[in-house]
């Protein structure tokens, strides 16, 4: 069977496109550059930390590895391993564009002015995260259940925010979790069963209860007559003792 020249060209174009795609997938570099560009665009950077260092004009191999806060897998390959942007006065919402840094394992956004909610689909945004520090920001809303599917989490720091609601019970499935802090939030309810996490990790959340904190109080359910009867009984016992 002889292919017409047009069909043959189409096949060549398709094959070339697929080869190009597969090369990108093996080396992962274009998405990581796009990841950092998008993060820079989505965040306010009042002190210019990102503005001064994150220069996308000089496109040499591994150039993003020299950016402030960026740690790469290999020195000359644009593949982000960790992003450490602590204490930079950054403002805005959680930068969802981080999803494009598909090889990211560590994210530190602590001590900034980030606000809004932690995305509910965070396990798709940070599928392989091992260390996540969102502490000392202005995050509000609840702790997403999705974090329980970030199975590689070793360290999760959410302290010093305005998070409400309960700590998802499903967190007990995080088998690698060794460090977990939620101090100084507005969390309530029963603490899930997490190994090796001490009471200090839950401090300053007025509504949190359950081991390792004091047990949760059941809501009062006594009727008025029961209260009066109890009072009479205790008086009776007291009188008889005397």
């Amino acid at each position, binding site marked *: 069977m002889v292919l017409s020249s047009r069909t043959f060209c189409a096949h060549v174009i398709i094959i070339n496109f697929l080869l190009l795609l597969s090369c990108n997938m093996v080396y992962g570099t274009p998405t990581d550059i796009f990841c950092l560009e998008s993060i820079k665009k989505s965040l306010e950077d009042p002190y210019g930390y990102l503005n001064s260092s994150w220069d996308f004009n000089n496109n040499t191999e591994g150039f993003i590895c020299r950016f402030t806060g960026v740690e790469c*897998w*290999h020195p*000359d390959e644009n593949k982000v*391993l960790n992003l450490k942007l602590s204490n930079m006065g950054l403002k805005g919402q959680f930068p969802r564009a981080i999803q494009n840094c598909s*090889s990211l*394992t560590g994210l530190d956004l602590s001590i900034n002015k980030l606000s809004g909610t932690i995305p509910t689909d965070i396990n798709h945004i940070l599928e*392989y995260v*091992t*260390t996540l520090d969102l502490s000392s920001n202005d995050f509000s809303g609840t702790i997403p259940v999705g974090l329980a599917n970030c*199975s*590689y989490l*070793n360290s999760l720091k959410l302290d010093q925010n305005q998070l409400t609601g309960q700590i998802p*019970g499903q967190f*007990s*499935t995080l*088998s*690698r979790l*060794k460090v977990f802090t939620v101090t100084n939030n507005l969390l309530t309810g*029963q603490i*899930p*069963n997490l*190994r090796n996490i001490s009471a200090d990790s839950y401090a300053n959340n007025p509504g949190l209860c*359950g*081991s390792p904190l004091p*047990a*949760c*109080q*059941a809501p009062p359910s*006594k009727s008025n007559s*029961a209260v009066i*009867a*109890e009072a009479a*009984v*205790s008086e009776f016992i007291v009188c008889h003792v005397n």
Partner: protein
Amino acid sequence: MKMGSFLLLVVLAFGLVLNVSANAEVDVLYAWKTSLVDPNNVLQSWNASLANPCTWFHITCTSDNSVTRIDLGDANLSGPLIPQLGQLPNLMYLELFDNNISGAIPSTLGNLTNLVSLDLFLNRLSGSIPSSLGNLPRLRFLRLNNNSLSGSIPESLTTIATLQVLDLSSNNLTGDIPINGSFAFFTPASFQNNPGLKPQKFPPPPPMFQIAPTPSAEGPSSP
């Protein structure tokens, strides 16, 4: 006659210089140079008659003239890694990535107790990862990806507490992926493209914590 004695002096002086340059680290590195094929002549400055290797290109030393870094990434080198490379006691960075280096990783590299970075990625290394590498207490970067390494991942590597970046991807490794010790921090990206490696297992979750009945819930029972 004057010419003869002059020549004798020259020969003696030369001999003296050669004796002074009997430096162990020079010997190690020069022996390695002779086993390598170096088409780009990157090792041209590696002169065995010098007192120490510290003026050689691609070598960095301590203030005591002992080798701390070998930087030969992307140098088009072929040949083996010789066992004597384990006799560089102050070596911290062994950067040999992106070459044509072949053969096995010598187990003597486990003697490099000051090693912080072992970058042998993008070469043609074969054989197994020596379990002696688990003896490297300061190792932070272990990047052996894109070689033809076989066998299993030594459990001893999980004992290296300082390990920050591990890349064993694109090899022919087989068996289980350890998940304990320092390996709790490593994700599939560190191991991908090893068809014989079994995927990491996650232990079953503990039973969901039930709310325990509290003694104060009902109050003292009525008579």
